[in-house]
């Protein structure tokens, strides 16, 4: 659609601009302010320049938290995206079965995040939990409060449980926009199952898949509440992801300067990645609209 040039449109955007500026720019400036100053308490601050940034960027703690975070987000994407596509392909296309599937699958998405943590905490405990008890009675040494591997396993399966439905719903939306005539034509041509997927279904899903990858990457990169409730970042620091580490630093230890520098570096990483995704997405949109 050709859009008209109209500078007065700014008046329509102004309320959003002011509201988001209030809740984004003011807090962000506070963070910037802290990141370049140090304090001995009593609200006395002095300028330290880039000291905190140098400290954070060179700290072992930040590197290992970032490493764990990247590993976690990577594993999440590798599991959830193919699984989501596969389930969406196998879902009933219409009727009450489809509605029932959609409602049941969307349910985990609307559970408060700390309750998700609580559910899995209960579910995975070796003494009272179904999963923990089953694994223990199979003779598997599973205890997410003591073994790092068990903790990772729990956190990952929890995230798969929580968020795969988002990928399924997105792919399902993409698939249901394909007219039936496409499938009939493929059938007449004798196309294989793989060819139907490769040349009909996948191109239609590409756009929503991009949104799915973007959302799943961002949200897993910012994950805080669920692993915090289940493992508290432990055992040791095994599941201390970036957000958990940051909150520990800012609220727990009240290291305002380093925490602020940490925040800015963290935000910049997320922003850079989302800018790349967004650019790729809009570029392929423009191509599709040609």
């Amino acid at each position, binding site marked *: 659609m050709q859009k008209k040039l109209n500078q007065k449109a700014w008046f329509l955007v102004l309320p959003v601009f002011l509201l988001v500026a209030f809740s984004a720019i003011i807090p962000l400036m506070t963070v910037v302010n802290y990141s370049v100053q140090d304090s001995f308490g009593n609200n006395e601050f002095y300028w330290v320049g880039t000291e905190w940034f140098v400290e954070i960027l060179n700290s072992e703690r930040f590197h290992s938290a970032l490493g764990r975070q990247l590993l976690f987000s990577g594993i999440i994407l590798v599991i959830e995206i193919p699984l989501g596509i596969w389930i969406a392909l196998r879902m009933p296309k219409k009727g009450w079965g489809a509605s029932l599937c959609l409602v049941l699958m969307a349910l985990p998405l609307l559970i408060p995040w700390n309750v998700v943590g609580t559910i899995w905490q209960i579910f995975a405990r070796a003494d009272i939990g179904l999963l923990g008890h089953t694994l223990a009675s199979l003779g598997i040494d599973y205890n997410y409060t003591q073994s790092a591997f068990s903790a990772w396993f729990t956190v990952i399966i929890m995230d798969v449980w929580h968020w795969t439905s988002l990928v399924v719903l997105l792919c399902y939306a993409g698939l249901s926009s394909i007219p039936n005539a496409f499938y009939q034509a493929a059938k007449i041509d004798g196309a294989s199952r793989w060819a139907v997927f490769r040349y009909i279904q996948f191109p239609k899903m590409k756009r929503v898949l991009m949104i799915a990858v973007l959302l799943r990457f961002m949200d897993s990169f910012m994950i805080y509440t669920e692993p915090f409730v289940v493992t508290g970042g432990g055992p040791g620091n095994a599941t201390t992801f970036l957000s958990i580490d940051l*909150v520990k630093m800012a609220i727990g230890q009240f290291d305002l300067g380093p925490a602020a520098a940490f925040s800015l570096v963290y935000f910049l990483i997320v922003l850079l990645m989302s800018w790349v995704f967004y650019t790729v997405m809009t570029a392929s949109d423009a191509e599709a609209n040609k």
Partner: protein
Amino acid sequence: MTLLRRIRITPTLYIIFLMLPIYWLLTMALKTNAEILGGFSLWPENPTLANFKTILTDASWYNGYINSTIYVVLNTVISLIVALPAAYAFSRYRFMGDKHLFFWLLSNRMAPPAVFVLPFFQLYSSIGLFDTHLAVALAHTLFNVPLAVWILEGFMSGVPKEIDETAQIDGYSFGSFFLRIFTPMIASGIGVAAFFCFMFSWVELLIARTLTSVDAKPIAAVMTRTVSASGLDWGVLAAAGVLTIVPGAIVIWFVRNHIAKGFALGRV
């Protein structure tokens, strides 16, 4: 018939996987603490509603649900009111800096809440809004307004521009055109946007917990405190968890026909 069954087996297995932990939470909620810790059983031997009764009769518990509902509804209303005109502007006009503005809005959806915890606490304390429902509602607009704009823009772009022009020729002012003709046309989009605002405000805990202490404490925060204070009251904790799932389930039921399109942000 066998073919039909084979096709459906994957979604069925997946849904069983989704439901198992929820089932486990429900059985916990129906057991007494003695039964939970006493031995392992797949279903409650003597189902009891005592845990639910504890929550529904104790003000410190059920006020949590009321507080959460108030700020979630407040947030949804605020987000939609400011997002509607903005989404219209983005879907219909080009203006100075529109693309940058749109990306800047989206970038707030991608901001880690952990980054904003401390500054939000100081900001809302200094303007005297700390521990009010309004503070949480305003803080949640940080990620809900951009999302609402994004979703609504997708739906609005699906409405042909000729409608606007015809209404203008028929002598409608912009305001009455927008409220009486345009808004009803994107009603499903508004429903979907409201659903998402509700959802993300309902599930968020970190910011809501930081901005409240007593008067506006959300249910999620009430739950965390009880765990640490009274040791491990698994039964009541599970019952509280079950009750937090109910509003979500109700909302999903209402939007079930639009949910797939909604998750694709109106852009399929």
